[in-house]
Structure formats: C-alpha cells, structure tokens
C-alpha cells in the first residue's frame, strides 16, 4: 500500500491532519508527519522530514507520496531527499497538491490499494475540487 508524508511549518497542523486522514481513510494507510522545527518552532526541518520519510517508506510497500503546505518546505524536503539513494528515492514522489484536500483524497485512493501514480493523480485532482455547494 502507498503511504503519505505530510510536511507543514506547524506540527499541530499536521498532527490534526493525520487524525482527519485516519478518520476518513482508515488506519491501513501509513501516514508520516514532519511539522515545525526540531526545537518546536514554526518552520521545517530536513532531519525531521528525512525521519518521517524513512519510517513511512518502511511501512509502505507501494511507495510514499509527499505533500507540503507551502513552497518554502520544498527546500528542507530537497535536503532531506539527498539522504535517499535508489531504489528508495524512486519510491518517493512529491506532489503540488494542496495539503489538506490532497491528503484526504490521496489516503482514500491509497486505502483501496491504488498505485503511487494513481494516488498522486488523485491528490492532484484536489486542486480543482469544488468545496461550496453548487446551487
């Protein structure tokens, strides 16, 4: 099954999101989180991201999809990804998808046994998902 790694500048944000994902998609999908800095401030940390990637990869035979809250997290993610060599690096995919909607959609897709490419496509669809009821 594909796992998810959720990266945010806030630890609280990704902890809450992980709870939401588990409620909606169930507990079968491994979800790693990396939020905030190592000393608990707002920000991102390459070592925390690398640790979340490592543990989630180990729990996910189908690979891992990574979602970010803001573009500045991508710099820490890049550093974290330098720790990974093929074949592990090839089992990690990063998406532009919005964090909250993307995580929910990706997790449900992962929970039905979809491939990493399918899970990523599902997350990307979140960008154009309607939220307000159409009248």
């Amino acid at each position: 099954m594909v796992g998810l790694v959720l990266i945010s500048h806030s630890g609280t944000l990704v902890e809450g999101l992980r709870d939401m994902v588990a409620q909606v998609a169930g507990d079968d999908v491994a979800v790693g989180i990396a939020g905030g800095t190592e000393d608990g401030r707002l920000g991102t940390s390459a070592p925390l991201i690398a640790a979340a990637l490592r543990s989630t990869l180990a729990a996910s035979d189908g690979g891992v999809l990574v979602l970010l809250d803001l573009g500045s997290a991508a710099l820490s993610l890049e550093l974290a990804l330098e720790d990974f060599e093929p074949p592990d690096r090839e089992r990690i995919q990063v998406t532009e998808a919005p964090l909250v909607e993307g995580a929910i959609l990706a997790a449900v897709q992962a929970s039905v046994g979809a491939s990493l490419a399918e899970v990523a496509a599902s997350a990307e669809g979140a960008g154009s998902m309607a939220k307000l009821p159409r009248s």
Partner: protein
Amino acid sequence: MPELHLVVKDPSGLHARPAARFVQAATRFESRIVIRQGDREADAKSLIALLGLTIRPSSEIVLAADGPDSEAAITALAAELAPYLGTPT
C-alpha cells in the same frame, strides 16, 4: 442496470467519512457504479466526484451500477451504507 433510490439519513449529508467508505466499498466491484442526484452524476469510485456532488441531508439520491457484478454491488453498497443512507419510505 439495477438502481436503488435512497434518502440521505446522516444529518451532515454525504460528508467525507461516509463518502470515503463508499469509495472503498465501490472499488471492490468491477461494475461502473454511480450516484445520481437530480441531473448530476458522480462516479462512486472517485472521492472527488462524490464530494463534488455536495449531497445534503434528507436529499434523494439514486445508486446505480452497470456491469457483470452490478446486482451484488448494489446489495453490498446499500448494506454497508445503511447507517448513512436509507430507502425512501
């Protein structure tokens, strides 16, 4: 093509959790499965499509399936979603 008319019982409508259960259950079947509300239709195997319908509580929906296991799919989905969806009285 078997179909079933249902009323959304859940006071929150078809929100994320039951919609996700729906997708997980529908994916087990080969048939094409849709939910229709009025003139709009969503693929029951796609969470984006289902949530896009924004189905409100007490609204009527139609669950329909087309394919080799369509009868089984309708029966199973109706049973699984009974806490959220009821048959119209």
